[in-house]
């Protein structure tokens, strides 16, 4: 099967979207970005191809006219167990990396072995139906458990918490810098099948078939902040502004204005009826009011990033936050907390502050036209969406606000669409 791929190397996460040659979505993958962009790119692509193969499994089941309810039950469990197997494989690599770093200190080694063993025991529950996970990334998932367990074990055999935490910080780099591997799909999927509570022969057959489908990459387009670091020819690189414009247009063809709030920049983009960018504005060198700002605030309040929006939505009386400067806002949050303000009210004020900054860029770029599509990681935050909806209505009147559940993939999707066009051009030239 031939495919095209778009990769968005953002400052916080790296995303890959895989399409077939007629722009049908095959799969997508995401990983946290790191110092080595090439690895991040490989991992995201590996994930996207895995999800493409899981999609092939689903298509196989469709072809065999399997009962729909049973089908979705089986596919759901297969995917969860597949993720669990991946998690376990990474846990194995983490154990090796920790052990090699603790080498020579038998006491330390035994503590980390103990911790990782306990993490292994917990893994099944982590991917149980309906289980909530704080993050999509191994670093965060494993990190939070490792640190919690390290706290319990600290002090044993003379190993302090800082030493245990330092060991993890080094080991995790090695684990997450291991490239993603599509070749392991069959092996991982078979292990997942074996661990399922109940399976069916038809599913096993579908997995085997999907694992054997050759996947052939036709073209690849990269975008995002790290794009220049990719070993791509210049023609394979597109600005994220164009990619977000095209991706938003593909998801919502009526789109005329796009707002993308990413990790370290915010972009207001106007597009025409074909998804071509007609004008844009972005934040200056200061990343105040971008996704990272929310990340720092989450740290400041000892919350997970995913928890910020839902908590802010509980607010009845938003506190006015004057600064979108990350440093000043941190100080303001502490001050407000000390004055006894509620966390949810402070958070509601912070969300409004970042959206106000985006409103200024939108105004500069030519305003908010109908339809209006919100993309990027921050579009998944319900409090940011609510603040945006209110301010847009106040300033521009009623607008259709589109938000895809896959908003974080919009840039990568746009890149994949450019890749598909590139493939089309090449085919017609040949």
């Amino acid at each position, binding site marked *: 099967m031939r495919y095209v791929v778009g990769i968005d190397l953002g400052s916080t996460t790296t995303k890959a979207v895989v399409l077939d040659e007629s722009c049908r979505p095959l799969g997508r993958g995401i990983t946290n970005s790191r110092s080595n962009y090439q690895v991040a790119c490989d991992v995201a692509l590996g994930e996207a191809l895995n999800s493409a193969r899981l999609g092939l499994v689903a298509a196989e089941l469709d072809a065999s006219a399997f009962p729909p309810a049973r089908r979705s039950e089986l596919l759901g469990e297969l995917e969860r167990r597949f993720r669990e197997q991946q998690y376990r494989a990474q846990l194995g690599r983490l154990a090796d990396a920790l052990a090699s770093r603790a080498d020579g200190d038998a006491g330390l080694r035994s503590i980390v072995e103990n911790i990782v063993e306990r993490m292994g025991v917990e893994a099944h529950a982590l991917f149980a139906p309906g289980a909530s996970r704080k993050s999509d990334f191994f670093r965060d998932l494993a990190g939070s458990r490792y640190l919690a367990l390290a706290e319990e074990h600290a002090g044993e055999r003379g190993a302090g918490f800082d030493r245990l935490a330092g060991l993890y910080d080094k080991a995790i780099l090695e684990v997450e810098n291991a490239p993603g591997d599509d070749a392991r799909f069959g092996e991982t999927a078979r292990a997942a099948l074996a661990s399922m509570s109940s399976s069916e022969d038809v599913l096993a057959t579908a997995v085997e078939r999907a694992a054997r489908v050759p996947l052939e990459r036709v073209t690849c387009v990269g975008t995002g902040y790290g794009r220049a670091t990719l070993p791509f020819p210049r023609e394979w690189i597109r600005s994220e502004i164009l990619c977000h414009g095209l991706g938003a247009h593909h998801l919502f063809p009526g789109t005329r204005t796009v707002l993308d709030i990413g990790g370290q920049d915010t972009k207001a983009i106007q597009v025409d009826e074909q998804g071509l960018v007609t004008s844009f504005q*972005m934040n200056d*060198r200061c990343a105040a009011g971008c996704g990272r700002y929310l990340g720092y605030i989450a740290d400041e309040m000892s919350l997970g990033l995913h928890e910020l929006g839902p908590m802010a939505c509980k607010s009845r009386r938003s506190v006015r936050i004057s600064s979108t400067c990350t440093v000043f806002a941190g100080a303001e949050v502490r001050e407000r907390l000390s004055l006894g303000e509620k966390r949810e009210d402070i958070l509601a004020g912070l969300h409004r502050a970042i959206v106000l900054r985006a409103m200024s860029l939108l105004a500069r770029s030519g305003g908010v036209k109908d339809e209006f599509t919100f993309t990027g990681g921050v579009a998944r935050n319900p409090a940011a969406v609510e603040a945006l909806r209110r301010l847009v209505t106040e300033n521009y009147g009623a607008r259709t606000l589109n938000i895809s559940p896959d908003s974080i993939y919009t840039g990568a999707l746009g890149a994949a669409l450019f890749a598909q066009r590139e493939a089309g051009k090449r085919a017609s030239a040949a």
Partner: protein
Amino acid sequence: MSTTTMAPLKDRSQLRQKQMIAAHFARLARTAESGEKSVYTFVPGNLTELVRNFDLLPVLPEINALQSSMRGKSKEYIALAEKLGHSEDVCSYVKCDIGMLKSGNVGPTGERLPAPDLLLLSYTGCFTFMKWFELLRQEYGAPTVMLHVPYQADGVITDAMRRYVVAQLEKKVIPALEKVSGKKFDLDKLREQLRLSAQAEDDLAWVLHSAKHRPSPIDAYFGGVYYIGPMFSAFRGTQDAVDYYRELRAEVQERLDAGLGPVTPAGTMEHEKFRVVVEGPPNWTSFNEFWRMFADEGAVVVASTYTKVGGFYDFGYRHDPEHPLESLADYCLGCYTNLDLGTRVDVLCRYLEEYDADGLLVHSVKSCNSFSAGQLVMLAEVEKRTGRPVGFLESDLVDPRYFSAANLKNRLESYFQMVAQKRAGARR
């Protein structure tokens, strides 16, 4: 894919300019022995011919600031000025100059600059210039004379405005220059100076107009700032300037005949992909890096407004020996910084049209309120009138803290890809 070849040696004209500047600064460094006197003044509305009429030597603080920046000195100068109490929000040219002054007043060529014998403020729209000279007056205690140039609020120069400026030249500026120099004003000499000015201006205008060709043999922004150097600084009205512009014109003619593109930091541009108009001053701290971002995209700037801050020669204005003081007045009144927003929009639209440019880029600098105020309004208006893609870039003049290469590159790449997309769309 690179669109340029390896950098050639510097042009003859550029070497000549360097020698002219070196000789001028050497002369400034020797004033203690030679007894020559110096007049500090600013580029927009500079009265160089008049200053030189009295054999006085012009010093241009904002040129010193930008050259300090290109030598990598502005960071420490600005830090020193801030230590002395100047806020982060003060124009970075001012702080760079104050920092240089407080660090021994060593100029761009490494030689010491003399204290001013006169501060001549020809006010053409920049309020900061007034404050800047207040600071210098406090520092040096030098006599100060101010020429008030009325703002072109309606985009026209009226007789009353002209008479108002001429009267100040006669009653304030010339007497002040006579007093500091101890010499009488020489009208015949001024006519001869203005004749030389007009001659050089003809050649400069020709060079600027050469960008109408495809490919353009010059870059009218990054290259343009070199071309305007002698004209906007200490040399207008001298034979040196005439010779420089004659030589420059011949070089550009050669490039034109050979069908060559401009010389950029990455070498001669071989394939002109984009033609743009730029509004706003350049960034000086990373001048070549910024230029290269354009060159790497195959983008050439065919017209810029910054190269008009010291006079609008491409639209036909010339210093006139037949009407010496009136033409000096018209010169001051016509500087870009003295124009209202409507006229600035007209100028930009005219450039886009006459130079057949793909679009407009505005480079907004944090330091300069005079330039930046209204730029977003202008941007929107130009886009509305011409339908050509516009883009907005932000950094600073000489404060390196405000230059974010990744951010600028991102915006430029996005902009040029947007232009290319639009072009491809139009062809479909």
